[in-house]
Structure formats: C-alpha cells, structure tokens
C-alpha cells in the first residue's frame, strides 16, 4: 500500500482538515504525515473492492454497490467505517 499517511489511519481522530489526534500516542499529528509502525488502515472507498476509479479525475470514482442506474459516484478519500457495502480490496 503506497502513499498512506496519518489521515488514512484508523487511530487518527481528525481535529480539522490539517491535523488530528493520534489515539496511540495521544499527540497531535499532521494528517499528511507519513504513517508510522502502528499504522492500521482506515476503511475508505479507495480500499474498497466496490470502488472503480474514474479514468480522468483521480479524486472521483463509482460505487458498484450502488443500487441505481447509472451507479452513484463515490470518492476515494471518503471514510467508509459506516458503509454496509464496504469490502476491503
């Protein structure tokens, strides 16, 4: 898994768009900081087998679990801990 950082960690509680609290170290860390040895992956659409990336816009894609036609969009960075259709890649 490449390019994963604190924002992608299950134990990162986002304070705002820049930083968050690390539940492991109890310190404030930047979301874009590199992952550490305690990293545990946060479910996001980009890790979901139902997600198909958009060919043109990297921040966009389609959720294949969507029950409508055409399928509803999804975006890779969306947190999906509450998504009932999430299946990890």
């Amino acid at each position, binding site marked *: 898994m490449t390019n994963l950082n604190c924002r992608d960690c299950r134990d990162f509680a986002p*304070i705002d*768009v*820049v*930083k968050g*609290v690390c539940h492991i170290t109890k310190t404030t860390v930047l979301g874009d900081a590199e992952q550490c040895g305690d990293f545990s992956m946060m479910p996001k659409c980009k890790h979901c087998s139902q997600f198909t990336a958009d060919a043109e816009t990297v*921040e966009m894609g389609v959720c294949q679990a969507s029950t409508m036609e055409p399928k509803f969009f999804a975006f890779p960075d969306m947190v999906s801990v*509450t998504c009932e259709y999430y299946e990890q890649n």
Partner: protein
Amino acid sequence: MPKTLKEVLAEAGSPMDFESGGHSPKEMVDREVKREPHARVVKLKDIYMDTLSSANNEFPYWYTREYVQHDTEIPVVRRAMSLKSAFSHSTPVIYPGELLVTHKAAFFRGSFPMPWLSEGYYMAKEDELYQEALKHGSASADEHTKFGQGGGNVVESFDKVISIAGKFGMRQEEIPALLKLAKAWVGKSVDDLGHKYEQMVPDYAVKEALMRNVICMFDSGYTLPQGREVINYYYPLEYGIDGLLDMAEELKAKVAGRADGDGIKGTNRLFNYEAIILSLEGLKTWFENYGKEARRLESIEKDAGQKAEYAEIAERLEWLSHGKPRTFAEAFQMMLTIHLAVLNEDAISGMAPGRIAQVLYPYFEQDIAAGRTNEDEVMELLELYRLSMSSIDCFASTGVVGGVLSGNTFNTVSIGGLNKDGGHAVNRLEYLLLEAGLNNPMPQPTLALLYDEKLPEDFLLLAMECIKTGVGYPAFMNNQIGMTFMLGQYGPEGMTAEEARSWAIGGCLESSPCCWKPLHLNGKEYFVPGGAGQPTSVGVHFLAMPKILEAVLWNGVDQRTGEQVFAPHDRKLATYDELFDQFKLYWQKAVDVLALTNNIQHDIWRKNNMAVITSMLKPDCLDRGHLIDEKGYRYNATFNVESAGTITCVNSLAAIKKLVYEDKAVSLDELKTAIKDNFGFKTAEEVNSFSLSDQEQRDGDTGKWDKLHFMCLQAPKYGNDDIFADQILLDWENFFCPDCRNYESLYAHTMYPCQISVSTHGAMGSATIASGDGRLAGTTFADASLSAFPGTDRSGVYALLNSAAIWDHSMSQNSQLNVKIHPSAIQGPSGSRKLLDLIQAYMRKGGFHIQFNVVDTKVLKDAQKNPQNYRDLMVRVAGFTQYWVEIGKPVQDELIARTEYEGI
C-alpha cells in the same frame, strides 16, 4: 497627511470624547474576574483554540445518494429516508478526554454543505474551486497553522486545504465530490425553486433591487430556514428513542387511511409518522455507531483511566440508542446529541437549547440526593458542554456566515424566569451553569437571564461576576415584557398566562414561545419548559433604515449604485412630516414585497425540505401527526420583520428635522449635496477603517463642508434623554410595531417586529453613503437597535437608558442595547452592586434587553494590531459573544469606537 475627523473636531474645540463619566487609567486594564476550568477542559480547549473550521462531504453524499433514488416517493418520506441514510453513515469521532461526545461532522469543529438548500455558490465558484484544488499541494502545512486574524476561520486556501467562503476548510481531495453533489441539486434546491417562483410576484423587480443594493441583507427561506427558536428535548428525555419509535408506530397504525374530519391534511399523518420513524431509526444508528467507536477505543486503550472512561461512554451511548436517560450524565448526553442532530437536519443558526438547567434539574436533584454524582462532576460536564457548543459551526452562504453571523451560531441558554406556578425558576443547577460560564468563558452557549423581580439577589450578583469576566453574558432580558409580548402574539393561538411563563430566548435575542411538559423520573413529576414554536426569525430580514431614508431623499434612487430601487415619489419633501410619511411608504413597499417573496421561499422549503427531526421534538407534532409544514407546532405565528440601523436613521432624521425644517440652517438640497460629497472625506474603504473618528479628509479638500458637517454631528442625538431625538424613535416604534401586523406569513398569521442587528450594522453600513447625522460613507451603523452611535451618548448611562425606554418594548419581539464599560468602573463588590442597580433601573423603566462589554478600549486597539496575542479575547457584538479575531473589521472598528463608560 490628511486630517482625521477626530483631529478636525479637536481643532474645532469639540473633541470626539468617547469616554463618558470620567477617564480611563493610562495603562491597559485587564478584566477583574478570571477563572480556570477543570484540567480536562483546559486540554480540550487547547485543541479547540488551534482548530480550523473544517467541512467534508460525508453527510451530503449519503443524503443525496439516497434522495436521488426515490424520486417518486412522498416528499416528507423521501426527505426522512435521506436523513436516515446520512445519519446512519456519519463517521463517529471521539477525542481523548471527552466525556460528552458526538460532533456535527467528523472534525472537532466540523460542518458540511447542504446543497439541497442552496447550491448556487458552488456552481458559481466551480471553476475557481476546481483551479484552487489543482493548484495547491506544494506549500508546507505548518506555516499556515498559526493563528492570527481570523482565529479558526480558513480565510484563504493553503497546502491541500481549500477555503470555502473565507471560513471553512475542505480537503482538496473532496472538491470534485462537492461540485458533483452541488450539480445534483441544480434546479432542485430550495434556493433555485424559490427563485423560480418568487419571480411571479408582480413587484419582483423591487425585491431584486433591494437585495442588489444591500437595502435588505438576505433571504430567509434557503439560507437559514430553521433556528432562532427554542428546541425541545422533552420527548427523547421522557420516552427514549425506542419509546418514541413505539409511539410513532402505534399512532401510524391509528391514522393510516383516516382523514378524521380533515379532508386535506388528515391522511398526511400516515406519511408524517413514517418520516418520524425513519428519522428516529437514523438517530438510533448514529448513537449506536458512536457507541461502537467508544468500544473500539476502549479495546485499544492502554491507560486504565481513559479505558474506563471509554467504557462508560460506550455504555451510555448504547443505552441511549434505545432507552430513556436515567442519570444526569445520560440526560446531558441525550440533550447534546439531539441538539446536534437537529443542526444537521438544516442550515440552522440560533437553535437555542432553552432553559436547560430547569430541564436537567430532575436528574441533577435525584443523582445528587442518591450520591450518584457530585457538584464537581456536574461542573466538569457543564464546562465541557461550553466547549461542545462553541465548536458548532453553521455552513451557510458567505454573506450569512460572515456578514450576519460573524461565525457565531447563537445557541443561547436561558436562565432565571418563572416556573409554571409563577414562582422564580432559579435552582441550584442554574447557579452551577452560571459558574461554568465563569470558569470556562467561551462564546457558546451565551446566557440570557430572564430578569424578574422575584429572582434571588445572590443569583443576580453572581451574574454580575460573570459579566465582569468580560464575556458579555449573561445578557438581561425583561421577563415581564417578554411575557406580555408572548401573550399578545400567541394568545390568539391559545397561549395562557401560565404557558407564557415558559418562554425563552431563541437565537441571540429572539423571544420564543415555549410550553410546559410533565417529565417523570423515578415516580416523581416535574414540569419542564421547552420550545413549542416555529423559527422566530424568519420572514423579512434586515431592512436597512438608513438606506431607505437615502432612497426617500433621492426620489427612490440608491446613491451608491445609481439604481432606481423604488418608484419615484416625486414629492417635494417640503416638511418633515412629508419626509417621514414617504419614509413610511417606502418602508411598507419594501416589507410587502419581501414578505411575499420570502413566503414563497419558505413555501418551497416546507414542501420539499420540511423539518422532520425538529418537528418531531416540538409539541404538538407527535400528538397531532402534523409537522411544521402543516402547522403541527403549537405556535405558528412566528414570522417577523427585522430592522437594521435604527439609531443611525433616527439620528439622521433628527438632524434633518432640526437643521433643514426647524432651524432652516441649510436647505435639503444643500445637505444632500454635502452627504453625496461625503462631507469632503474619503470613503471608509479607502481609509480601511469603518469607525467614524478615523475617517480622513480628502487630499485637497477645501473644507467647504466642515461647518455643515459639524452642525450635523452636533444636532440632537439619541441616547441623551433629549426628547427631540427620542421623540423620533418613539414615532418610529409606534408606526413600525403595529405596521408589521399588516403582513401575513405563509402560515396565515400576522408578523411582528424584530429589532436586533446581529452583524449587519457593519455590512450594511459599509454599503451606505454618508448620512444626515454626520456619519460618513461606509462607516458602521450604530450597533443593535438601541445602542447609541459611538461617541454620541454624552450625558451619562442613565440618560441613555431613559432614551431607550421611551417606547413600549412589549410591542416588539425584542430590542437591544449594548453598553461598553471600562473594567475599573465596576470593580469590587460595590462595582457589582452599581452594575446591578443600573440593570434593575432599566428593567423597571420597561427596557427589554441590556448587555455589557466590560473591556478597556486600549486592549481592543492592541488586539486589532496584534491579533496573534489575543486568540482568546472575547467581546459582545449585538446579541452574541464572539472571539475578537473571528469578527470582521467593520464590527471591530465600531466596538473600539463605542462610548466607553468610565463610571456609572
């Protein structure tokens, strides 16, 4: 160097003396009272102080995804399905040290756009936002995380953060999703549909012109359709989520297919109950998801104390996902989560929690008696609550968030007042609530003290201590005047004197109808107050009186833009009476057209975007089976007309009356020419100060207007117990208040006056040319509705109170008077006593509202120069308390300029 007005007047022998009743000490004086909250609160507050307002798309994503699938569904059910999906998919986030949990969005200070209300902003900015999202990604984040001017506002884009409306930060990765979601609502949002239909009002062109020329500040139908009301926590507290689900299921079965005598709306009850059930299911999942997150954190936590706290939080949330609260902590958590749920239903400002210490008292009383908790634990929760409430952001359009709200969301808590039986309603928990406001001074919840002669003296003196911290709360509201207004406005809907006692403040200063409900706890019955009315500040919003006067003087033409706003009146304005008569006619024209267009916007809102969750909470929706759109609320006569710039207009009328019509010292034409020429001064924009005293003469100005300008400044001014100016205020109020009854809301009730400025006195002042009172172009209007214009109240504070109390305040939903006092003027116990005497004197004269900024102007000046040193400085603006660094410059300038009372 061009001269400032202050220098010009000093040379003329009439210095602008902004200190009244003495002189302040030379050195900066800090506020007298300072306290600290519990250690855990300090830690979390440190996080808050360094937090950026942040937004994401999770809620709108799931809302929209569900909504688009059900285009043939009944609107109320479709809306509830969308809400259910959005709540069920909201990511829970809990921070170490929290005891009260749940957040609006997965950030400490999070919010999100609601494109179903209005998507136009994103569409208009599509290109810009997209380019910003592409552009950023190189600079380092650290360099932008320092706070100065702006506080937690993301005033500009940086790194991977895109600024939306100069307030909210959104991750660059989410911008394409935001635009895609916004597109899904083009032509369907309340804004778009409202706009389509409001154009069918015959005088629509006048409305457009009023908005374009900032004579009216904003539409209420799609900007903030709910709020400025008091929420009601009774049902979830009394029944719990499962109890409410059972009740709704039972009632649904009872009404399915039955009209029960109402051939139009009777059968709608089935769909309404179905919507209620869906929403409750969404809330249940929200509680459960938070419970799961607390359990997860418990499982990974190494620290035994924190682990136990997570377990406790998890148990609480798991219980509340179905059961009714049994303890103080459970009731408090339920209240907070329900409050946030309501705020996530709509773009809402001013959803006031109401008289929470009276609502929570049964739990407090029984827990304390049983030894389940103690006052220290209760205090810690009360302090934490201030942090939760201050973290609430409202994601609305730029003009609304900055220009009107100053970033505040007005979750006012009321204290004091009377109980159901007419005794005072103060209890031990109310003392603690006030103390929490002292210990943890934060903008929210601001406190409104419903003053009644029956309130205990020590409680009032404690309130004085709180005011002396400089937080600006509690504001004092006159309970008897409030009740008289309630009975006048809601009597026709059945309000009794007993019920009128339950009223509270919604928003910052909007008197709101409430009711009593019987809460049962362990076999004991308590009557608790809670909101029972629709939003009480919707309708015609912020109509700038000085701009209407300008239109009168120039035959309907706005002088900043040159646009013909009103049809020409072609009157000679030969007498003051003719001038005032025309002012009233233009005013009525503006109110009429704005009332109609706003009715249409709200009608679209109620048809497609009605409140389901707030409705379910408000008596008597659950019993009746009708939501807000079908007048299920007990009180529906809540629409109003909001004025702005009252005192600036009164002073201008006074100057014109005196100089032109009585003394004939100048002709109206000559005065108009001077006003148009800004009395030889630059504009506020050019000077970059919005305070009158800082204005500079134009280079090369010959001084030809100096004498006239001086006369205008010296003309009678409101705030000095001078009947010449005060009579104009009285005449205005005696016209304005009853005139509101000539306009009908979409709920077929007459309207009423609302007289608060929020922050519009800054924004509207900056769009207004000079005025007859000597105010210069672009400078801020007098704040609130009864505050004197800075530096013009020169006869002492009691004279100001006499001027303010000249009219009958019970004719209006509110009035607003802000007074700035130097900390040294009210030092020590005798200072507290003097302050209380002053307040009581005003209340006894029939004043409705008064509040204080206890601050040294030198501190404010320093804070404007060095914002980085004043992240936690708070001031009182109009009806709310806000961090200095988070308010705009026009309002800051007015606060600095405001008369400082050195002695009272």
